[in-house]
């Protein structure tokens, strides 16, 4: 259908970003194709060591899902996005496809082994998330292609992850956010993935921060060094949510806290966290 009506059409998933953008005339599509009436594109499954989320799965469904809770960072993310009403409508596929630099999902899923399944009349392809989003609001999706599924590999044992987003109020985008995943062996960090949200044109993979942890003893000093490296990786714009310096300082604090929680979770501890409010 989207092939027939041409490139002035847009796909409508949960609409919690696209409809506000249309009201502001930032988006002005001639046609909208509503995906909400397509059956069987909303599901959460565990299969072959991966969690599979149908593109139209609502944040609220992920928040309430026992399967999704196997990856606590995914539950934290779903449960903290905006507010009840937005979570009841907004979808994981829509969030990834929109590629808003302030969106929560891309930041969280960049720390996981995540694959975006893309479907077009020509067939299906799988794109790793780190190659899927190329710029602010820009992805590799072709015009006649849509996100059909998000697939997240279940990490091995002794891996823990945490997501912290700092917000002024529930319905707004975070001022800054940090997602951390660590694999540990005793007190040593074997593997680390750190991503930052809202502080660049896309979610940023803080590779220097990861390197600062990888292979190191997990001490206050190594965690502080990683957080410092993350602060340097942040490239925030000053806006009504805060100055660039303020956002960098937030990144430092969020990464430090997220590492600490991720490590506790990797050790098997149950830690409850959610978005932080000013």
């Amino acid at each position, binding site marked *: 259908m989207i092939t027939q009506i041409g490139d002035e059409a847009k796909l409508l998933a949960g*609409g*919690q970003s696209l*409809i506000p953008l249309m009201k502001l005339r930032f988006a002005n599509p001639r046609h909208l194709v509503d995906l909400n009436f397509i059956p069987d594109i909303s599901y959460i499954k565990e299969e072959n060591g991966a969690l599979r989320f149908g593109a139209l799965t609502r944040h609220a469904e992920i928040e309430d899902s026992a399967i999704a809770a196997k990856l606590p960072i995914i539950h934290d993310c779903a449960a903290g996005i905006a507010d009840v009403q937005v979570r009841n409508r907004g979808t994981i596929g829509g969030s990834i496809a929109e590629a808003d630099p302030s969106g929560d999902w891309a930041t969280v899923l960049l720390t996981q082994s995540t694959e975006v399944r893309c479907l077009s009349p020509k067939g299906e392809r799988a794109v790793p998330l780190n190659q899927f989003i190329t710029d602010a609001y820009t992805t590799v999706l072709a015009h006649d292609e849509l996100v059909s599924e998000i697939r997240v590999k279940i990490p091995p044992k002794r891996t823990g992850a945490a997501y912290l987003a700092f917000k002024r109020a529930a319905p*707004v985008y975070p001022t800054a956010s940090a997602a951390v995943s660590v694999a540990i062996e005793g007190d040593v960090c074997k593997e680390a993935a750190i991503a930052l949200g809202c502080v660049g044109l896309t979610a940023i993979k803080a590779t220097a921060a990861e390197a600062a942890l990888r292979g190191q003893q997990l001490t206050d000093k190594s965690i502080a060094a990683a957080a410092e490296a993350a602060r340097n990786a942040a490239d925030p714009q000053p806006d009504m949510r805060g100055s660039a310096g303020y956002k960098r300082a937030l990144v430092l604090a969020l990464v430090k806290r997220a590492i600490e929680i991720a490590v506790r979770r990797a050790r098997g501890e149950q830690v409850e966290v959610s978005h932080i409010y000013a």
Partner: protein
Amino acid sequence: MPETIEKIPLKVNVNGKAYARNIEPRMLLVEFLREELDLTGTHVGCDTTYCGACTVLMNGAAVKSCTVFAVQADDAEILTVEGLEKDGQLHPIQKAFGDAYGLQCGYCTPGLLISTYQLLSHNKQPSAKEIGKAIAGNTCRCTGYQNIFKAIQLAAQNKTGA
């Protein structure tokens, strides 16, 4: 550039009553409720998906009706604030908001009542933290929320007969 927009048929159930209308596809659900059905209890506060004054229940889930196109509610069941009272009797949630002074100007109240309705439909005795999470998408600029929390706790008690 004004242009004629083809109208689309919509069939929707609102507060237990079936409606059929032909509407422009760009019409928002809140505009449909207020302008087509004259159900003006659902308010437009910010029109930017922030304030929650326009909250209605759509197939059992609270949504901001300023951020849903009316045509998306095709075949849906909608509950608005007008659907809460029965036979001239206020719903226990409405009564609790009155008894606990959970409103001042009342502009945000229809949205808060619906958010409370969704909360209490799956959580009979919510904690203060759970109430906070449930109404985080509803902005009140008068009350400071204290009495709203009290009202929701009172509504929970009244509903369970405690």
